[in-house]
């Protein structure tokens, strides 16, 4: 990176800056003319004797009126030209600034990508975010102005000064007499200000870091009741920032004050000294007036320059701080991430490690002295056994290219792994560690992530789309950004050993079964909702499954476990509201939260004469709830779990009941009715057992249901009605197959029905299609919507899918249960039969199934060979295997 922001500006935007300067200078004559012309119009065209006309302008004779109109037209033209200049300059300044800002942010991001990994232990996310995003922001404004403004204003200033000195050297000198004081004093103050500003930025970084930490550790804070501590800490931090900011304000406005004071004290010299000179006769009165007028003109550019000075100093300081945190020793070489090898040769042959330095930079020389050396034939399956402090994890990092040791050598056949670019280590070697990172996106995105090294096929753009991409690319080139199209097809099908999208899909599911995750994804698929148009075959299959499940339930005599959706029957396992809608809302028209207030719903209830009954039932519900929960303390979770009325609303309902005790339902006003109605809507007769929705009432509700749907018209309704012949896109695949509700009060019915659905799905051969839907499951930020075990499995699957020559696994299955570990280990050994699998095992006994076992202690190989041979009394391996 350039050492100062000015060098950065010169290097990347010199051409633009010169253009800005030239245009600024070029605009000046027009500006001057615009100021000058009104005087000409008044003096020469309006306020002149008619005898002076006609006048000749560019060889054309003009009368007074014509002359006036010509001048006015010229004035109008100048206004346009000036406005145009200003507009263009402003926009172009903005463009230059933004382009440079974009370049800077890109450079910083690339630098971050190249940080040596240990650096991330010392630099927090919050700090990186705040530097790259927030701290760079104000620099854009400065960059646009950085050359044109000082050049232009400085030029004005010099011109005016020359004029003054020609007029009268003494007064000229008087006008700038205090400049030296300013030039001496202001930088001194500015230096102090700069220091404060840097401090402010450092504090702000620390604050972002802390906020990030608190957000990540929020569970700890609540489990240990430390919100007070955190609040106090936060208070201290924002307090510090406050203090520094106030100091900044003081200094900044003190500098302003000095500048203003000096600017206004100069006229004092003019009046006193100049006046004395005029009175003494050494200076003409006209000269004094001219000089004072010139000085007033001087004030503007001088002020602009002083302002600019502050902005410049500010930008300079910010840039220095950026440099400080992004100029890191030991950065990954640019080539290492850029080089694209022409051919790819498999990594195979003898793996030879010689004196590999395992220690981290901040560790002493005595850690792992001499380094690690070993020899092993590849391809083979190697188990590395080593407890904490054995260096096994570090060796795995080196193998994966994640750690480049200071000394030592690592060869695999013809490959020098330590100097290979990431195009080799990141494609032909895969690594899965004990901690995995997933990115927000779908499961599929994460699974395919390891195949996206470079764009393979251009994105298919239509005409305008292509033009737009060309424009974006050109602009990216101007800012020195990446020229790769993010929307291109990045997936390296060949790398995964498949031909096209379809076979990739099949392979993805195969890999999921290798890591024992196919069933998880199938379950996620069942829970997901899909658009039937996107997967018409699956939608048809699901409808078939729906029918088959119904038959199966009847055959097994367990039909009572499911209460199916039947348009002509009341469903006691749904709420009253659900029974009325009998479908799922597609938009917010029938917001379940506010159904009681919905005008159409109320009209339907009125039409079928249910309104008053419902209000009456709601009142009864309220009475029961007020009665039941009267003694329950407000904080109790019973409210949340069971009550229709929250603890806060209970007094309100109690009041409402008391107030309307003697009223009949139709005496109540609208809001009271809504309140009661909303309670009725939430009743599930089978579950709540309040005996309020009896059979005649249920029949009337079915009537209301019919009225409700008929009134909405046949198509484009905001409700997807439950229709046995239609796929419902607003609910999950599972709910589509179930097409009903699990009956209340049946233990373990969810498992039993789940099992039956599985049978039906297999009978109709739908499992694969449903699993594919599961691939679209959004995993959440850092995969937070998956379990730890699922995250681990997905990370392994991602590495298997890219078919590396060498797969390095470092205790990546430790979080899984023993049977899953065994299955995955077996599957991987089979999958990597002809390739290398190097596994740092977390239990020595796991090494048994590998071709070769390597035992590490203190960074040295202490035993190596077949497990069966090594595992005898007296060996380190034997001791470790016994320990578990």
């Amino acid at each position, binding site marked *: 990176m350039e050492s100062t922001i000015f060098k950065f500006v010169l290097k990347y935007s010199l051409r633009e800056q010169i253009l800005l300067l030239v245009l600024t200078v070029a605009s000046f004559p027009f500006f001057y003319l615009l100021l000058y012309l009104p005087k000409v119009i008044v003096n020469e065209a309006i306020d002149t004797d008619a005898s002076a006309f006609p006048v000749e302008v560019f060889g054309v004779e003009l009368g007074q009126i014509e002359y006036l109109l010509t001048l006015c037209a010229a004035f109008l033209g100048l206004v346009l030209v000036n406005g145009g200049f200003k507009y263009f300059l402003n926009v172009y300044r903005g463009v230059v600034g933004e382009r440079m800002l974009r370049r800077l942010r890109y450079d910083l991001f690339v630098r971050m990508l190249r940080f040596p990994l240990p650096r991330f232990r010392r630099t927090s996310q919050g700090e990186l975010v705040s530097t790259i995003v927030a701290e760079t922001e104000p620099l854009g404004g400065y960059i646009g102005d950085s050359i044109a403004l000082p050049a232009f204003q400085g030029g004005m200033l010099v011109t005016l000064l020359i004029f003054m000195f020609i007029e009268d050297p003494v007064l000229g000198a008087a006008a700038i007499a205090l400049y030296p004081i300013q030039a001496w004093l202001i930088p001194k103050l500015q230096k102090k200000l700069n220091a404060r500003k840097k401090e402010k930025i450092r504090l702000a970084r620390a604050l972002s870091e802390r906020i990030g930490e608190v957000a990540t550790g929020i569970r700890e804070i609540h489990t240990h009741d430390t919100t007070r501590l955190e609040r106090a800490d936060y208070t201290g931090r924002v307090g510090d920032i406050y203090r520094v900011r106030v100091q900044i304000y003081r200094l900044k406005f003190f500098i302003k004050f000095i500048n203003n004071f000096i600017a206004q004290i100069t006229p004092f010299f003019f009046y006193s000294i100049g006046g004395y000179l005029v009175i003494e006769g050494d200076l003409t009165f006209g000269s004094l007036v001219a000089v004072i007028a010139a000085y007033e003109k001087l004030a503007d550019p001088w002020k602009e320059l002083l302002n600019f000075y502050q902005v410049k100093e500010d930008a300079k300081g910010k840039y220095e701080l950026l440099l400080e945190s992004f100029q890191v020793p030991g950065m990954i070489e640019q080539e290492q991430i850029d080089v694209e090898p022409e051919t790819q040769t498999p990594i195979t042959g003898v793996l030879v490690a010689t004196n590999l330095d395992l220690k981290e930079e901040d560790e002493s020389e005595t850690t792992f002295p001499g380094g690690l050396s070993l020899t092993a034939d590849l391809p083979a399956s190697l188990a590395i056994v080593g407890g904490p402090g054995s260096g096994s994890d570090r060796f795995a990092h080196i193998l994966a290219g994640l750690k480049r040791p200071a000394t030592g050598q690592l060869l695999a056949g013809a490959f020098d792994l330590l100097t290979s670019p990431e195009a080799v280590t990141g494609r032909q070697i895969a690594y899965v560690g004990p901690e995995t990172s997933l990115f927000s996106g779908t499961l599929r995105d994460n699974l395919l992530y390891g195949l996206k090294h470079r764009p393979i096929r251009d994105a298919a753009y239509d005409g305008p789309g292509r033009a737009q991409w060309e424009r974006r690319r050109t602009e990216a080139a101007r800012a020195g950004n990446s020229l790769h199209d993010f929307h291109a097809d990045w997936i390296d099908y060949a790398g995964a050993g498949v031909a096209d999208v379809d076979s990739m899909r099949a392979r993805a599911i195969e890999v999921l079964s290798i890591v024992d995750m196919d069933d998880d994804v199938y379950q996620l698929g069942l829970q997901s909702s899909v658009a039937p148009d996107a997967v018409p075959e699956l939608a048809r299959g699901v409808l078939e499954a729906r029918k088959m499940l119904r038959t199966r339930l009847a055959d097994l005599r367990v039909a009572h476990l499911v209460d199916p959706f039947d348009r002509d029957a009341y469903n006691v396992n749904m709420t009253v509201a659900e029974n009325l809608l009998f479908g799922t809302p597609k938009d917010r028209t029938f917001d379940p939260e506010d159904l009681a207030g919905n005008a159409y719903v109320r009209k339907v209830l009125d039409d079928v004469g249910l309104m008053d009954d419902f209000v009456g039932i709601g009142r009864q519900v309220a009475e029961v709830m007020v009665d*039941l*929960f009267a003694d329950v303390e407000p904080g109790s979770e*019973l409210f949340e*779990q069971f009550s229709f009325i929250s603890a806060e609303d209970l007094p309100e309902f109690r009041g409402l009941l008391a107030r309307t005790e003697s009223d009949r339902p139709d005496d109540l006003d609208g809001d009271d009715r809504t309140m009661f109605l909303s309670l009725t809507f939430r009743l599930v007769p089978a579950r709540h*057992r309040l005996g309020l929705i009896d059979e005649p009432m249920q029949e009337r509700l079915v009537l209301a249901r019919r009225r409700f749907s008929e009134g909405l018209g046949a198509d484009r309704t905001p409700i997807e009605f439950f229709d046995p012949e239609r796929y419902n896109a607003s609910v999950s695949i599972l709910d589509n197959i179930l097409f009903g509700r699990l009956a209340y009060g049946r233990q373990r019915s969810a498992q039993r029905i789940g099992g039956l659905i599985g049978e039906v799905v297999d009978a109709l051969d739908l499992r694969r299609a449903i699993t594919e839907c599961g691939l679209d499951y959004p995993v959440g930020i850092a995969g937070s919507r998956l379990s730890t075990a699922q995250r681990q499995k997905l990370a392994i699957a991602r590495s298997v899918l890219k078919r590396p020559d060498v797969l390095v696994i470092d205790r990546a299955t430790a979080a899984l249960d023993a049977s899953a570990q065994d299955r995955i280990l077996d599957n991987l050994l089979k999958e990597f039969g002809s390739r290398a699998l190097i596994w740092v095992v977390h239990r020595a006994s796991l090494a048994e199934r590998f071709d070769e076992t390597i035992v590490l202690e203190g960074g040295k190989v202490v035993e190596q060979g077949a497990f069966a041979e090594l595992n005898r009394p007296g060996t380190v391996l034997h001791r470790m295997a016994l320990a578990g």
Partner: protein
Amino acid sequence: MDLKTEAEMLHKVPMFSRLELSKLKLLAFTSELCTFDGGEVLFEAGDAADSAYVIMEGEVEIVVETGAGPVVEGVLGPNELFGELGVLTNSPRSATIRARDGLVALRISDEMFLKLLAENPEAALDVMRQLSDKLVRSQDQFIGLQKQLREQESVRA
């Protein structure tokens, strides 16, 4: 079946007999009314004890595993409470419970059951009395068995 009936049924359970009806209503409301088919197992010996049950309709069999296979050790009928000791001692189920014919039972979650005891000393006292009874009975049994053993030994000697 509605809440009121359920609360009245609960009232007939000795442990709950001294509780106010309103509290029993809340208990019923926060419990799950479960239906079981004949022969359906409510829980098996060794399962974690996460709830207590009160029979509303029907009967259950207490099945104990012995060396000679499962043996029905007893039958419980309406208004009887079972499964509460497991909840109290936080230990696994000691026997398997099976519905005889159609059964309807109120399933009280462990949380609610313990809460009820904590808030109602009368009920807690009752539990204590029951537990002491059981203790006394098993102690009597123990002494009886010991006596038998000694007699047999002296006969052999």
